[in-house]
């Protein structure tokens, strides 16, 4: 029991354990601090930031669906400058890998953001959100075309020496083509999935529930799609994968790891159960212990048989 090792290393991103929180569901690390110390986690990912402050979309921004959640927050964030000034100093003090999620609406946006974060600045990795489906004039295009995706990653790669996570959109015909594209662009790690584009209609008002018409679907409803994509990407590229999409319990987390995820990210689950990341971590430990693994790395990709 004592010798079991939870540490994992994703192409230079060292994590003390494989449980991370997902961007946009954990604020800037402060929201769940009243419940537990975020430093017990392998990492936390902050809300996506953009070069300039954004008000995001009008409300309603949320709609509940069977086992799922539609959101159209629209990348509300304080902007790069305010983030660096008001949030980064506190974040840098946490004893966990802080991952900054960046979004942009042009290659220059992405490059600018990336150039502000280097090794030693207090964060552990940069996650490039090329897939946010909520923004009408951007995001989507990069994340759904392999060529643009590669361009973004190349542009970001030039500007930072931090480990680079490319976060993929599931709204594509072939997720492996996207994975290969960001691999060529120079990504170190792939995270997936971002939200599936969806919508809901109000029967009384006879119009879309979300002010922004469409939104991103997350939560357990999307899990089978997410597990499938992690499984496919694990076979298609050599990069380590951070798996997410509907993980509520440790069983779900193990499912992603068996499919090929080296670490897992917890998003929507936080809303229902603030302690979800902590409980998932305990569950992963117990599963591995019970089966006699020495290191959590051993279970990654086991569902592939041979390759695992």
């Amino acid at each position, binding site marked *: 029991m004592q010798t079991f090792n939870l540490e994992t290393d994703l192409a230079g991103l060292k994590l003390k354990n494989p449980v991370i929180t997902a961007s*946009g*569901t*954990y*604020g800037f690390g*402060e*929201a*769940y601090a*009243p*419940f537990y110390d975020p430093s017990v986690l392998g990492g936390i990912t902050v*809300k996506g930031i953009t070069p300039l402050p954004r*008000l*995001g979309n*009008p*409300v*309603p*921004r*949320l*709609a*509940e669906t*069977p*086992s*799922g*959640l539609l*959101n159209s*927050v629209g990348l*509300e964030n304080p902007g790069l400058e305010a983030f660096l000034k008001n949030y980064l100093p506190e974040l840098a003090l946490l004893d966990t890998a802080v991952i900054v999620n960046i979004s942009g609406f042009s290659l220059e946006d992405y490059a600018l953001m990336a150039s502000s974060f280097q090794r030693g600045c207090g964060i552990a990795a940069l996650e490039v959100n090329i897939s946010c489906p909520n923004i009408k004039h951007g995001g989507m295009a990069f994340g759904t075309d392999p060529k643009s995706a590669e361009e973004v990653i190349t542009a970001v790669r030039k500007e930072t020496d931090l480990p680079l996570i490319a976060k993929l959109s599931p709204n594509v015909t072939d997720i492996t083509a996207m994975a290969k594209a960001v691999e060529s662009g120079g990504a170190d790690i792939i995270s997936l999935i971002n939200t599936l584009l969806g919508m809901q209609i109000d029967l009384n008002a006879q119009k879309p529930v979300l002010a922004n018409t469409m939104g991103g679907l997350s*939560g*357990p409803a999307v899990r089978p799609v997410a597990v499938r994509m992690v499984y496919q990407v694990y076979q298609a590229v050599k990069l380590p994968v951070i798996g997410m999409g509907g993980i*509520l319990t440790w069983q779900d987390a193990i499912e992603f790891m068996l499919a090929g995820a080296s670490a897992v990210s917890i998003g*929507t689950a*936080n*809303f*229902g*159960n*603030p*302690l979800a990341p902590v409980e998932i971590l305990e569950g992963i430990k117990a599963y591995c212990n019970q089966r006699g693994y020495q290191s959590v790395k051993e279970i990654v990709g086991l569902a592939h048989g041979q390759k695992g």
Partner: protein
Amino acid sequence: MDLKEKVVFNERIGHPVQGLYKVVLSGEAAKTARPGQFLHIQVTDTSDPLLRRPLSIAGIDPERGEVTIYYRIKGKGTELLSRIPTDQYLSVLGPLGTGFSIPEKGELLLIAGGIGMFPLFSVIQAAQKVPVKIKVLWGGENKDFLDSADLNLLLQKGLDVELSTLDGSCGEEGLVTALLEKYLADKNTQQLLSKGLLRAAACGPNGMLKAVAGICRNNDVPLEVSLEERMACGVGACLGCVCTVRDANGGLKRKRVCKEGPVMNGQEVVWDADI
């Protein structure tokens, strides 16, 4: 913050057609709850529905360790809540959000639309402990609704209550905003106002709150409103529940209803913000 509260009472109140329920929870929440705060309640342990439900605290009894909540069956979530038997434990986050401020003197004018009265019950409870006069204006659909929604509770306390109903079946026929205008036009009220001794707190549908805010602005009545917005996390993490406010410089900002609210300065809120 994440509590297990025991359901000690959970029953329909009033006429079945109103779909109103009262639930009493016993546990830690009562120790720190303030009027206007809410609880974020898990109504099932499967993933449908996935989210918790935010419900305002209507009564706080720290001695017995009990909080009371009134709710109306709206959809699946509240329906599931209504089926939870006594003695079962509920997973509850909270108490969450800001509360109403309770002035120490003068008069506190409570303006409620429909089930917007429920959070104000907790204000009354608190205000009755300080030397402030309470005046209640409450508008509902009809007499049946008001009776079902525990109007008696107010009357028993001997409070100064004015009512309005859409069909005139109880109190004035019309909207609560008409009661408000009439009341503010009153000489006595004007006197209070001029001495800075009148404050207002309102809760109800958005359209009503907007009108109330307009009337209060015109009359220079300080106003707090309790907002509702769809919520996911309830703790400020998801940015799902924002409202729009105008800051001192006239710039627009977002505030999170769950964190900086649900109780807000009624004059700072930008109603019908279309951005």
